[in-house]
């Protein structure tokens, strides 16, 4: 049997031949705004290059929507809502959404490559997670469209109108699906803004929506930066805002909407505790820790970024973790062997570097495997910190990168106390072979999604969303219908 010390002295060498994915992502040279069923030039004529963060090359130019474009999109969405979508039977609405799901499944590989090139995530993840889940999400909510009368006993579910939706850059297409699918199923129309660094799969989705024959104006996709998002939030003819992104922006939105009748759902940041008990299956737990924090380069709001290890197994877990981290393959996101792809943007890399620097300054101990990083592009080595105190910024702030802060605990109560010692409450993890302990702990952790003996699992049928400062409302499942309907 291998021991922690033996493993430390015998680093593994992995050499894989390159295995690049070669499907053509079929980017246009230039993408206009998708408004009222057509691609139209932006009012102010601005385009911004959208790059591949792994190579720093430009993939396409994408229109930058400004307030007049937002207004145009909202008008189109309102017209489509009043004249077509709100009058259409759920059965017919559903069939359009099914079409989107099917078309997406058919072009899954192309979308996966596009997602990986534009966002930097590994092709394995975009191929196996992002794109299939996006298609599944449309398929799931398509089926709800003609069943809403059964969803809320004693009440009639009525659509809201025009939904303004602002999504982040970490799961670009999947977040678009999370937003658009339930909105359409419940009879609303949509103005969606993808993130400024990752608009390309959303624009490809716009093409696909054209192919699906969705009535003009039901979905409008207008890329842009923060001012575009603000214009959507502030537009007086939008009935509901759905936002996924940082807690700071979420708070701004909540405040901005104060005194209006606009509804809103917010899916914000997190600082999840991943709790490893002594009686856990340690090797499985180590894999779980890796998945929890390094999935999608740690650009995951529900990432297990605080590891809480019970003292008796802390040394073993940390040793095994380091050994496993040393085997992670960092590099070309299009290579099917790659575990950790590129950091999404230069800005994000800067934020990660600043927080990691604060960790060292505040007295935590940093460890990274030695691995080569590509010369071009934005990269960050998988990183762990030990000797972390709960007051350290790396233990309080969302880093949104491949950086793990490790704390230890002795008792269940201490684990729960530490897990809940955060302003966030999006997710959590518990690893133990004792069923009774799982329920005891998961009930006490104040978070919206808790994975026991697993981590980072998602499904369209399973509601997702946070407690406390991690947001308001749920997306996915039956629960995900509620934010898009008024119950009469």
């Amino acid at each position, binding site marked *: 049997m291998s021991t922690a010390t033996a493993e430390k002295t015998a680093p593994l060498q992995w050499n894989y031949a390159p295995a690049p994915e070669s499907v053509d992502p079929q980017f246009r040279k230039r993408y206009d705004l998708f408004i009222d069923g057509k691609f139209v030039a932006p009012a102010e004529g601005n385009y911004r290059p959208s790059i591949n963060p792994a190579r720093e090359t430009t993939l396409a130019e994408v229109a930058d929507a400004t307030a007049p474009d937002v207004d145009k999109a909202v008008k189109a969405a309102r017209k489509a809502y009043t004249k077509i979508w709100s009058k259409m039977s759920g059965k017919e609405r559903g069939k359009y959404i099914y079409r989107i799901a099917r078309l997406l499944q058919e072009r899954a590989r192309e979308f996966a490559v596009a997602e990986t090139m534009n966002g930097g995530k590994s092709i394995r993840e975009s191929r196996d997670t992002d794109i299939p889940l996006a298609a599944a999400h449309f398929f799931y909510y398509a089926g709800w469209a003609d069943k809403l009368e059964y969803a809320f006993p004693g009440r009639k579910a009525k659509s809201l109108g025009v939904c303004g939706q602002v999504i982040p850059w970490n799961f670009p297409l999947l977040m678009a699906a999370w937003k658009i699918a339930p909105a359409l199923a419940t009879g609303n129309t949509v103005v969606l803004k993808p993130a400024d660094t990752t608009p390309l799969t959303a624009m490809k989705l716009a093409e696909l929506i054209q192919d699906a024959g969705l009535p003009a104006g039901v979905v409008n996709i207008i890329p842009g930066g923060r001012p575009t998002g603000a214009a959507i939030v502030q537009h007086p003819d939008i009935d509901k805002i759905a936002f996924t992104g940082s807690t700071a922006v979420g*708070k701004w939105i909540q405040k901005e909407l104060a*005194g209006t009748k606009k509804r809103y759902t917010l899916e*914000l940041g997190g600082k999840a505790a991943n709790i490893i008990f002594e009686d856990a299956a340690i090797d499985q737990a180590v894999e779980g820790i890796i998945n929890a924090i390094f999935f999608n380069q740690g650009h995951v709001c529900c990432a297990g970024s605080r590891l809480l290890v019970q003292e008796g197994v802390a040394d073993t877990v940390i040793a095994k973790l380091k050994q496993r981290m040393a085997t992670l393959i960092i590099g070309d996101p299009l290579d099917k062997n790659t575990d950790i792809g590129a950091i999404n943007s230069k800005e994000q890399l800067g934020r990660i570097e600043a927080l990691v620097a604060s960790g060292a300054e505040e007295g935590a101990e940093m460890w990274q495997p030695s691995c080569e990083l590509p010369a071009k592009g934005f990269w960050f080595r998988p990183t762990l910190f030990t000797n972390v105190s709960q007051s350290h910024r790396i233990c309080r702030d969302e880093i949104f990168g491949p950086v793990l802060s490790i704390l230890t605990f002795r008792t269940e109560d201490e684990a729960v106390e530490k897990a809940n010692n955060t302003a966030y409450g999006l997710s959590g993890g518990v690893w133990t072979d004792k069923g009774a302990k799982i329920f005891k702990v998961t009930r006490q952790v104040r978070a919206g999604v808790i*994975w026991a*003996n*697993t981590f980072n699992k998602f499904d369209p049928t399973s509601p997702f969303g946070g*407690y406390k400062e991690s947001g308001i409302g749920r997306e996915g*499942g*039956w629960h995900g219908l509620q934010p898009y309907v008024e119950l009469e």
Partner: protein
Amino acid sequence: MSTRVPVQKTYKLYIGGEFPRSESGRTFDFNDAKGRHIANVSRGSRKDFRNAVVVARSAQKSWAGKSAYNRGQILYRLGEMVEGRRDQFIAELQQQGSSVADARREVDDTIDTLIHYAGWSDKYQQLFSTVNPVASPHFSFSVPEPTGVVALIAPQDSALLGLVNYLAPIIVGGNTVIALASDKKPLSAITFSEVIATSDVPAGVVNILTGYRSELLSQIAGHMDVNAVVYAGDNVEDRKTIQSQASLNVKRAIFSEKQSQSPYAILATQETKTTWHPIGL
């Protein structure tokens, strides 16, 4: 022989199962419709509110941890206690301007509302929980859980029923609450707190303040250890203040002009927790 002089009640706050005066020492006059002095009502301060949040927070975990059956019986007992004090509540509502017929109806509806929500204590979970048929080999299920500490800005015009209509769905779901009573009709809320004190509702689960809405609203909505604020009313300025302040900690800001009995009223101050576990590992 002289006639007996009745003993009058001092209307105080209800915090942590006790009846303190406002720490500020302030009161405000409450007169009946004819201008006769009825009471010096405590004018609760921001500090009183903060004190109430501390006890509400410490009471929340064990309240939520009680069995649903137990919480239901405690709410039922609240109904029993109001029933036993019908005459007192009716007289007090009359002092605050209600006709006798309206007062009777209000007390009846209050009791019935408590009984209604008592029955929901072990049922709303079954309506709003799901087992999620995920595609991977996992057991995934979602259940409602209390959002935590809730501040309630009770309706201005309905001294007793209005309060109970909003309070009952909050506490039956395992939340603890700090309620700010109507400042126009503050008396019934304090008398209701005597009902709470005698109904096995643990100290700190329900806290009732009297005071001026205008001076407390912003502080209540901005408190960093309050999870939700429920506002009964339609004042746009109030709503704006509440939601702006609520954004400090992404507090759930729940606005409701009128409340009808339903499990959806309970759902308003619930979170959804989803738990996953592998199958067959």
